[in-house]
């Protein structure tokens, strides 16, 4: 790669006064020596000055009247809409304001996912209901006769009973551990990346991480802890998505 190839991508930033001193000095030094790059820079400066100097375009006098007429027409059309369409419009506007404007394929995909989820839940509920009859039914007690013997046919498979209960009890702990693994992996990546960040960005990042770790410690166990861990993962992902670490300083609060 020649010096010209390195300098030319930086010309725009240099001309706009956005290069740090040391980089600006390198560009200036090259421009003194290289007539081709100098001419390119002069052309770009002339172009930029020419663009800045373009005369403002005045809107036509009738524009305001046209806007008022369109507003009036839309309001009349709104008033004539059936009630359900006005409500649908409000919902769509709300979704758009929430930066979510579903397209037809997205709606179809959401419907498929919803149907699948309902199907799965129903199936699982039925299955656990069946299991519940077998597993947790208390033995019948006959007063005065002692506990009735449990017929062997209705006895739950002991292994299944034990496994499911243990699994359910272990689930939150497994989730906590899995979140913790993700956090540690992201932290390793952040440590590598942070060498390229400014000292200020690094300090802000470290302060935020300390705060997030405190929040995890304060949250205790279970769901609150998962939420705190999830916040930290989100922050780390967002910070890592930036090449310059700027967001680490200010974003993803």
């Amino acid at each position, binding site marked *: 790669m020649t010096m010209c190839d390195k300098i030319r991508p930086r010309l725009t930033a240099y001309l706009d006064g956005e290069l740090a001193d040391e980089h600006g000095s390198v560009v200036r030094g090259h421009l003194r020596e290289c007539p081709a790059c100098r001419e390119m820079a002069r052309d770009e*400066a002339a172009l930029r000055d020419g663009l800045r100097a373009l005369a403002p375009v005045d809107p036509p006098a009738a524009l305001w009247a046209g806007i008022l007429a369109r507003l009036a027409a*839309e309001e009349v059309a709104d008033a004539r809409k059936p009630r359900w369409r006005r409500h649908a419009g409000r919902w769509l506007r709300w979704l758009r304001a929430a930066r979510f404007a579903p397209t037809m394929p997205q709606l179809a995909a959401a419907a498929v996912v919803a149907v699948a989820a309902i199907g799965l839940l129903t199936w699982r509920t039925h299955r656990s209901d069946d299991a519940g009859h077998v597993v947790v039914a208390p033995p019948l007690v006959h007063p005065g006769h002692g506990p009735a013997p449990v017929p062997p046919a209705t006895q739950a498979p002991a292994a299944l009973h034990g496994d499911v209960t243990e699994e359910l009890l272990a689930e939150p702990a497994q989730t906590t551990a899995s979140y913790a693994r993700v956090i540690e992996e992201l932290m390793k990546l952040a440590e590598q990346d942070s060498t390229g960040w400014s000292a200020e960005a690094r300090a802000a990042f470290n302060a935020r991480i300390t705060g997030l770790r405190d929040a995890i410690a304060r949250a205790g166990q279970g769901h609150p802890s998962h939420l705190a861990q999830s916040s930290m993962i989100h922050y780390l992902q967002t910070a890592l998505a930036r090449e310059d670490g700027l967001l680490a300083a200010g974003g993803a609060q």
Partner: protein
Amino acid sequence: MTDLAEPAPAALAEPRTRVSATLTDDAHLIAACRRGEARAMEMLYHQYKRRVFGMAHRIVGGSDAEEVAQEVFVRVFRGLAAFRGDSALSTWIYRLTVNAALSHLARRGRRHEVGDEGLTELPAPAVIERDSALAARIETALTQLPAGYRAILVLHDVEGLSHEECAAILECRIGTCKSQLHKARARMRELLGPGLDERSSPKP
């Protein structure tokens, strides 16, 4: 003209934002417009009409600019009730303007049975009149640019918005905005040909 062998003058590094409305002014204006006060609506229109129309004019061209500007202001007045103030009012209005202009171009492209992507790939006319004034040549070259490049050049260079504002309007990262500006200017230089600076132009 900038002497490029000398250190960049301070003027280059100065912020060039021309927006002066304060948040408080905007908040009052928005509240009055939401109440449907005609005077406030007209005030908001006058505050933003030049920039909105100017951006629309340079992105979609003179013949459709009025239609796009009308659409933008109608969306602004009808959307103010849902405006949450996540960004400055000006940023929101300019975002609506750029989006309306780009959507208009896409619709126009479909009507002409040529997609927007197709339009961007059309070769530029080989000769842009060299003897016309620089401003006229720049205006002509702007019309040959892909719409996205045109938008960033209009926002940053013509309207003088900062990279931060451009990134907020275009909903992209500041780095993306800078690289798009660099590419857009390079494309403009290609369209206009060398010797833009009078000092380096060949003498007739």
